[in-house]
């Protein structure tokens, strides 16, 4: 197994403990971040992502639990004594220094020799493609350039772990997508462990080796992007990552990892279950819109299919989301692509057949 860069053992954090404004920001969070890993903390606003980063960086003290950095306790280390650097959400560049001075700052505080500092600054600036702007002030740069300076400044002292707090959130879509790849590339080249915070699920899926999904100060699930997307452990995770159909029902029979589930008086769906449910259990099934195949009435279809009617269409350019009414109060969101001529294969009011594999329909653990 890979060595652990950061071990977080049952960490809790309460702000203003004992006062009426006490806030439980983290509740017994445990997770392990491996060395050389691109690890992402994903969750909605206020779920405690920044708090966890600040605990690792040393700007806050844990209320309970323990954080180990490369197997060693860091409780008594000042932020300046931890081999960890942060890329702050709003960059926090030093406005009275040039780009080069900003990048050199950490190395100077570490009392590195002058020649070495100059070489490192040159190298890091060329890494983030800012060599030409070395003598500019941060205020004379665009958001994307400032973001790179923040990155360069945090990389220059070669930290063992880099903490990145929503570093892309201030950028426009195009730049954000470009920076995603650059960051991922940079992480591979440097081999530094990245702990990346975001509330953008797409960003998390695109960049991470592993993701921890958080909500309300608790970790909901830890896993690879595929695991999180395909096998969410609960409704929160399934809902937070991507579009999802939720279908409530009651299990009527179980066979190996397949269950039959009554959805309404005369509808029964078969679904995959990894949660050892028993007949009689009330469960929620989930189904991703892209796993649904739609065929128009006239065609002959194999396997189990359900007749439905299009009630609404959301056009998104490269795809469209259709609301399909299956009767019996069941409505599903399905995905379809425009045809080559750009028109959608269906219109509101059309009748069609809905098909999905029983392996695509899954029972949520909780």
């Amino acid at each position, binding site marked *: 197994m890979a060595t652990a860069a950061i071990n977080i053992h049952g960490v809790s954090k309460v702000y203003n403990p004992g006062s009426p404004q006490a806030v439980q920001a983290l509740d017994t969070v445990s997770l392990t971040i491996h060395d050389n890993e691109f690890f992402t903390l994903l969750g909605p606003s206020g779920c405690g992502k920044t708090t966890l980063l600040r605990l690792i960086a040393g*700007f806050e003290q844990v209320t309970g639990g323990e954080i180990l950095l490369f197997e060693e306790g860091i409780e008594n280390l000042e*932020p*300046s004594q931890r081999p960890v650097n942060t890329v*702050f959400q709003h960059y*926090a560049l030093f*406005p009275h220094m040039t780009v080069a001075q900003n990048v050199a*700052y950490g190395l100077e505080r570490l009392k590195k020799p002058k020649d070495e500092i100059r070489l490192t600054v040159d190298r890091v600036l060329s890494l983030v493609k800012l060599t030409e702007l070395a003598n500019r002030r941060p205020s004379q740069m665009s958001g994307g350039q400032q973001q790179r300076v923040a990155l360069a400044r945090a990389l220059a002292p070669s930290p063992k772990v880099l903490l990145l707090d929503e570093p892309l959130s201030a950028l426009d879509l195009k730049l954000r997508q470009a920076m995603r790849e650059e960051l991922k590339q940079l992480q591979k080249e440097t081999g530094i462990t990245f702990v990346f915070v975001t509330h953008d699920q797409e960003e998390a899926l695109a960049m991470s080796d592993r993701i921890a999904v958080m909500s309300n100060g608790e970790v909901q699930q830890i896993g690879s992007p595929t695991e999180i997307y395909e096998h969410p452990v609960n409704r929160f995770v399934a809902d937070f990552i991507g579009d999802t159909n939720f279908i409530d029902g009651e299990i009527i029979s179980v066979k190996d990892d397949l269950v039959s589930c009554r959805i309404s008086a005369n509808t029964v769906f078969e679904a995959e279950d990894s949660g050892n449910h028993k007949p009689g259990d009330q469960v929620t099934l989930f189904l991703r819109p892209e796993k649904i195949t739609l065929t128009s009435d006239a065609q002959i279809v194999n396997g189990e299919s359900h007749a439905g009617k299009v009630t609404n269409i959301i056009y998104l350019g490269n795809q469209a989301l259709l609301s399909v009414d299956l009767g019996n109060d069941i409505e599903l969101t399905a995905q379809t692509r425009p045809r080559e001529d750009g028109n959608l294969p269906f219109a509101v009011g059309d009748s069609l057949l809905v098909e999905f594999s029983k392996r695509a329909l899954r029972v949520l653990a909780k």
Partner: protein
Amino acid sequence: MSDQLTRPSSKRKILPVGHYRGLGLWNAAFLIFLYMPIAVLIFYSFNDNRMVMIWSGFSIDWYIKAFNNVAIQDAVLNSLIVAFFATVISTAIATIGALVLARGGNFRGKTMSLGLITLPLMVPEIVTAVAMLIFFAAIGINWGLGNVIIAHVTFCIPFAFMPIRARLEGMDTSMEQASRDLYASEWETFRYITVPLLMPGIIAGAMLAFVISMDDFIITLMVSGAGSTTLPVYIYSMIRRGLTPEINAVSTLLLLFSITIVTAYWIVSNKTRTETVH
């Protein structure tokens, strides 16, 4: 304070009163009302005549006379010494105070301390003056110019405090945290990050304190003994001995000096605003 006053009401739509006739005239009348006395003062400082109000020709003799007047030289020197020390000491105290109030977390009496620091701005000056006089008499301090400096330090603190605090308010702690994150000790962070970022506020505060100290009359009059006369106090005593254009000349020079410093203050605080810390 003057920060807010000079700031143009940025994007708010201005009432279209510009087309009312006579508005320009009102404006001119208002400016004349404001500046006429000063213009007259400056004008007669170039009067050749001994009697201020009787014009008999242009000359700069009164300026030469003022420059050669030993008593004026002493008064100017006293004023500069007092203003220098009052500025340095009050700015240092104000800086520390602002840092404690802005960065010291929440401590008991924080709001009250803030109020108490700025309260002297609202206390009538004559009250402060009398209080100072009685205070020095009561504790028996009689250090001549030292008394004046102590008095000036006290009333300069709130003036120095305001721009420094304003600057600190606009500075979040993230820059200091970034510095700590980049292996800087607390002292290095203070030296390389906090102080440089705060500097425009400190300079603005110091200039304000300097001008206020140079201009002060009432409190100085009360606490200054023989030998510690400052320029405003000396000008007052000259008037009592009779008006000559020499007073105009000295006053004009004092005015020029104040304008220079206020302009510098304005430039510094303006520059601060354009390169705001974010």
